[in-house]
């Protein structure tokens, strides 16, 4: 009797002990499994898919590099890579403008909180809304173009969204409007981190402010800029919603970017292997870029210390 009772209570106690001792490891396991299955497993799956003949359904027929050859011959994919580069370069403008605004805010005490609030609010709304509003502003008959024509500029042309060689500028402009406030915040934080003594020293030395910014402050903020480059490139790779809302890839596919191309392959055109090949190429571009950025970061930090 006694022995039985002990055994019956012993098991739960042993389990309790197990949970007590291993609780930290058990708490980590779900995230570990999610990282392995959903991120690494999925990535491997996509890479494998890119070597198969899958169309609407996964099909494990191995076709080697045929899908990659197809991609190389697809002018739309080429256009999307070109647009990716253009978007990445163009969105640098939000960093430049964000830095300028941060510097101006640093030199101006009146209404700082108000300005910050106004510059940053676009960041709070969805890119679908950003795209929709700018599509409206770019409306050739009723938007900005008409506004300037009514002001007397009869031949004013501002139809970026409808012209295939200018449509990317329209998207970049909307994206810059959306994200400038964010880079202003990053640069403001960087500027605040600079020692006041640096400024005092420059004043006593009679060095002009402009020269100070160019020769001392900007080099001092290099890590802020590196972070910004990383974030800007992530933004360029992710760009999808804003294209859907503004142009849906048009006119004639001239605003297609890689994310849009890949998602379109998966969901509308139902060519899984080609979408997988595209996303593998995108992954390699991203990996190469971050490798370079990581190395630059490492070298700069070594030199610093």
């Amino acid at each position: 009797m006694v022995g039985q009772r002990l055994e019956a209570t012993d098991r739960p106690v042993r389990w309790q002990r197990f949970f007590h001792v291993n609780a930290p490891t058990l708490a980590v396991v779900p995230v570990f499994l999610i990282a392995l299955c959903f991120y690494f497993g999925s990535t491997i799956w996509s890479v494998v898919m890119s070597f198969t003949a899958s169309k609407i359904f996964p099909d494990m027929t191995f076709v080697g590099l045929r899908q990659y050859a197809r991609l190389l011959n697809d002018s739309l994919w080429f256009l999307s890579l070109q647009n990716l580069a253009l978007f990445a370069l163009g969105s640098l403008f939000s960093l430049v403008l964000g830095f300028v605004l941060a510097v101006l805010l640093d030199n101006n005490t009146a209404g700082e909180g108000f300005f910050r609030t106004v510059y940053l609010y676009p960041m709070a709304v969805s890119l679908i809304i950003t795209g929709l509003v700018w599509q409206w502003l770019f409306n050739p008959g009723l938007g900005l173009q008409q506004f300037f024509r009514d002001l007397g500029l009869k031949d004013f042309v501002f139809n970026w969204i409808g012209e295939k060689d200018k449509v990317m500028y329209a998207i970049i402009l909307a994206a810059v409007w959306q994200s400038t406030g964010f880079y202003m915040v990053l640069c403001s934080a960087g500027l605040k981190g600079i020692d006041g003594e640096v400024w005092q020293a420059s004043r006593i030395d009679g060095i002009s402010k402009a020269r100070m910014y160019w020769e001392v402050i900007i080099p001092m903020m290099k890590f802020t800029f590196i972070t910004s480059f990383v974030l800007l490139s992530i933004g360029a790779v992710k760009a999808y919603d804003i294209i859907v809302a503004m142009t849906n890839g048009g006119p004639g596919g001239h605003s297609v970017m890689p994310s849009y191309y890949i998602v379109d392959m998966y969901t509308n055109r139902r060519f899984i292997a080609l979408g997988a090949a595209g996303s593998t190429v995108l992954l390699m571009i991203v990996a190469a870029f971050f490798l370079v950025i990581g190395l630059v970061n490492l070298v700069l930090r070594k030199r610093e210390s």
Partner: protein
Amino acid sequence: MRIAPEISSLIALPNRIPPKNPVSKGAAFLVLAGFAVLFAVPLYVMIVTSLKSMDEIRLGHIFALPINPSLEAWDTAWNKASSGFTSAGLKSGFWNSVLILVPSLFMSVTISSICGYALACWNVKIGNLLLSLLLVCAFIPFPIIMYPLIKITAFLHIYSTSFGVSVVHTILALPILTMIFRNFFSSIPSDLVKAARVDGGRFFGTFFHVILPLSPNIMIVVAIMQITGIWNDFLVGITFGNVQAFPMTVNLNNITQTQIGVRTYNIYMAAAMLTAIPPLVIYFLSGKLFIRGITAGALKG
């Protein structure tokens, strides 16, 4: 820095410091105000357009104030606008967004905060390995894992449901949230955790009685970041949802893209405003915490 040694002998002469130039200060203010106007224009246009009738919009004065302001477009956008599938307006999308948001917020914050706590305050053997894995995860572009995620959620019978959308949001948020929580909890003095452990505090006991009371701010920051991020999402919602479960952003996009013929911009702008109001309210109420939220969440990718 470079100049410091040369001028250190002069530092005792404060009178030499020239006063800040008031002219350049005024110029800075003017430039800032100019840009503020440029940044505010789209919001202004959204609001005035949503209050106009289509007849007035056809006049082409995009910046003009409405002659007869009316909330009719708002009413149509909320109750009746057609999204191609139904003509029930945006309100179903609003509730779908809430239905997606609540579980994903709960799941992502719970899992990531407990995992971050374990990584920061306890010795976990695979801790360092996991941290480097998570860093890589945060940089994997979504398109590459999108199709496998569709297959996995379909296998789990949650594909094309609002709960499936919540699960995908949770998965996408975990790497960055775990890193944020881990960094924050690492900054809590380890003596506190040790003392709790000596007092017999167990893993969860210490978490609820010692750690959580110290972290209301980080919780708010993460909540703001998650709420705005999930509310504004489009791609996950359209890929993993279905007609009954589309979030508000997808609903909005459908309303603006499925109409044939006249493009009713007053209704589009009213719908856009309705979709933008929840995150904008959070933005204007939370101020600095919002800034911290998006700065922390920016790495999410």
